[in-house]
């Protein structure tokens, strides 16, 4: 029979009468858990931001026609040379169109697919931006702007103007921030673009686009799909790229392979496109967890030490409790409950401190040219980390308390009382 009231009463008296060690032990847990919460919130926040920065630029599956040599050269088709060793020098890429064949039916097919959140057509054109007699080479991407807003984070990257303004203006352009700076242009100005063939078109700047990646911002601008088709003098079904966003990203690779076969185009899935990026993320996560676990283990050793000392100090008390009829288990529970109280109180305080610190980090200004949408440090307030934090606090104090309390359980009262 365990009388919790008595046991907790003794535990409470011990804790309160040794306030200094109690506070030290509790603070050990508090700082461990607090640092864990702060670190993990901040690190995963940063990771998520970096993920967003790169991954949201990339569609889950990207369909396009690749310029490459045909795999079957004419000689392979000639029966007389079958089975011989043929060498062809100076193979040239196959003459083919850049556009995706049957783009509109493909789009319809994709939009009806169950795992597809959306598919947007794009038309990438090589153009020159004209500024006086200077020509700047670059890309003009024709998009269905409202679909892009729905499916990607393009809206975050439009630092001036709005996507609606582009939609409502047939001759509008969202100019890359780097280009705008080079040519000293601002919203409302006009910019002339010239196609490779030399046709010149004036476009009105309705917004500035800044992705945060200078290589892109220095060459790329967005406009309506129809505008680019008109500039190039192509029909409405002329589309060079199809970007697909999925509901479940896991299926990306399999689907890409299937689409490649089905439509005879090149399909690149997100993992293939960002393989090395993924590795970086994983390693950052590993470091975060390694540091956090170290912190928590250090806190655990603190508790172990303090309980061990407490038990040394309380040897006589333990002996007397046993002599007056408390069993070994009762004594163990007295010390275990002390450990658990320290763990619980320290853990809860740690969560609080972690929350406050991550809030402070969240408020800290962090402005960088590369990330237009970020004004403060990113912090990830995930409840899971708080649950992990308190669980670890309880588990580590349990382990740290178990070993010393088990020793207390085994103390022989006769030895203590007789002083041998």
């Amino acid at each position, binding site marked *: *029979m365990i*009388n919790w*009231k*008595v046991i907790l*009463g*003794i535990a409470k*008296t*011990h804790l309160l*009468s040794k306030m200094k060690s109690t506070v030290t032990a509790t603070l050990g847990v508090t700082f461990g858990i607090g640092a864990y919460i702060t670190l993990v919130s901040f690190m995963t926040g940063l990771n998520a931001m970096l993920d967003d920065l790169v991954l949201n630029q990339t569609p889950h599956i990207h369909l396009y026609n690749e310029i490459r040599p045909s795999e079957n050269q004419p000689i392979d088709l000639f029966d007389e040379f079958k089975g011989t060793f043929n060498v062809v020098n100076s193979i040239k890429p196959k003459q083919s169109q850049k556009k995706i064949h049957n783009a509109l039916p493909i789009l319809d097919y994709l939009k009806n697919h169950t795992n597809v959140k959306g598919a947007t057509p794009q038309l990438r054109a090589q153009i020159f931006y004209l500024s006086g007699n200077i020509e700047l080479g670059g890309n003009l991407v024709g998009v269905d702007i409202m679909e892009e807003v729905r499916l990607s984070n393009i809206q975050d990257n439009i630092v001036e103007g709005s996507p609606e303004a582009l939609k409502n203006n047939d001759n509008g352009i969202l100019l890359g921030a780097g280009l705008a700076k080079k040519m000293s242009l601002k919203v409302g100005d006009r910019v002339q673009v010239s196609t490779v063939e030399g046709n010149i078109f004036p476009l009105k700047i309705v917004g500035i686009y800044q992705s945060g990646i200078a290589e892109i911002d220095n060459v790329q601008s967005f406009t309506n799909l129809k505008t680019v088709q008109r500039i190039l003098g192509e029909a409405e079904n002329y589309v060079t790229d199809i970007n697909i966003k999925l509901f479940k990203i896991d299926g990306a690779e399999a689907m890409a392979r299937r689409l490649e076969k089905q439509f005879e185009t090149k399909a690149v899935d997100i993992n293939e496109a960002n393989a090395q990026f993924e590795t970086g993320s994983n390693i950052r996560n590993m470091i975060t967890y390694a540091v956090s676990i170290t912190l928590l283990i250090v806190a655990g050793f603190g508790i172990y030490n303090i309980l061990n000392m407490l038990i040394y100090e309380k040897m*006589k*008390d333990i*002996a*007397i*409790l*046993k*002599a*007056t*009829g*408390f*069993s*070994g*288990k*009762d004594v163990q529970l007295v010390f275990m409950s002390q450990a658990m109280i320290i763990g619980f109180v320290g853990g809860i305080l740690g969560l609080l401190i972690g929350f406050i610190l991550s809030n402070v980090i969240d408020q800290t200004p962090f402005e960088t040219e590369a990330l237009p949408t970020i004004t403060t440090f990113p912090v990830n307030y995930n409840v899971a980390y708080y649950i992990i934090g308190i669980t670890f606090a309880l588990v580590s104090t349990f382990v740290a308390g178990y070993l010393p309390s088990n020793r207390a359980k085994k103390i022989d*009262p*006769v030895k203590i*009382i*007789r002083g041998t």
Partner: protein
Amino acid sequence: MSLVLEAKNINKHFHQPKDFHVLKNISFGVKEGEFASIMGKSGSGKSTLLYILSTMDTDYDGELYLNNELVTGKSHQQLSRIRNESIGFVFQFHYLLSEFSVVENVMLPAKKLGKKSIAEIEHDAHQKLAMLHIEHLAHQKASRISGGEKQRVAIARALINDPAILMGDEPTGNLDSHNSENVFTIFKRLKEEQGLSLLVVTHDEDFAKRTDRIIEMEDGAIVKH
């Protein structure tokens, strides 16, 4: 009269540092309402015997009966319960829990037993303290009272569960003659007024002579009882 405590052929060896036969064939009994004392020189094994009788030491051969019930061989859990319920123990040093108040120290074994409500236990504790003339100290910290008072608190604690037998390991060994006298008077009164059985290990010949029975030990054996 029936025996409260009975030892049959108790033998004990110390194995460290070398084998040593401490207790040799100890057999005796304490009757109900008897005030017995165990005397002997240092090293005669009297304390060792007392700790076996108190059930705290379980490393012995032989049989021990408490209230005619065999105690030997029970689990630690059961022995704790028996100590809690039926044996009161007073040590040479007071051994109070210094962070607790006097009355809390007295109440603790009863709370552990859990047979009465807290209010009843508190009432009992005050009664025991009053009987020992130290009720005015009830709410003092145990570390703040004098040595004689501490020993009386320890006696009150030993009595709280109305044990079958009260054991003492030199309970007056650390007290001046005035306080020793006091403790003896208390023991005597407990025997006479409440019919409590007492078994006290002592060096003090004067103390022993005034008890009902002296059990004398020498070299681990009872020489006279």
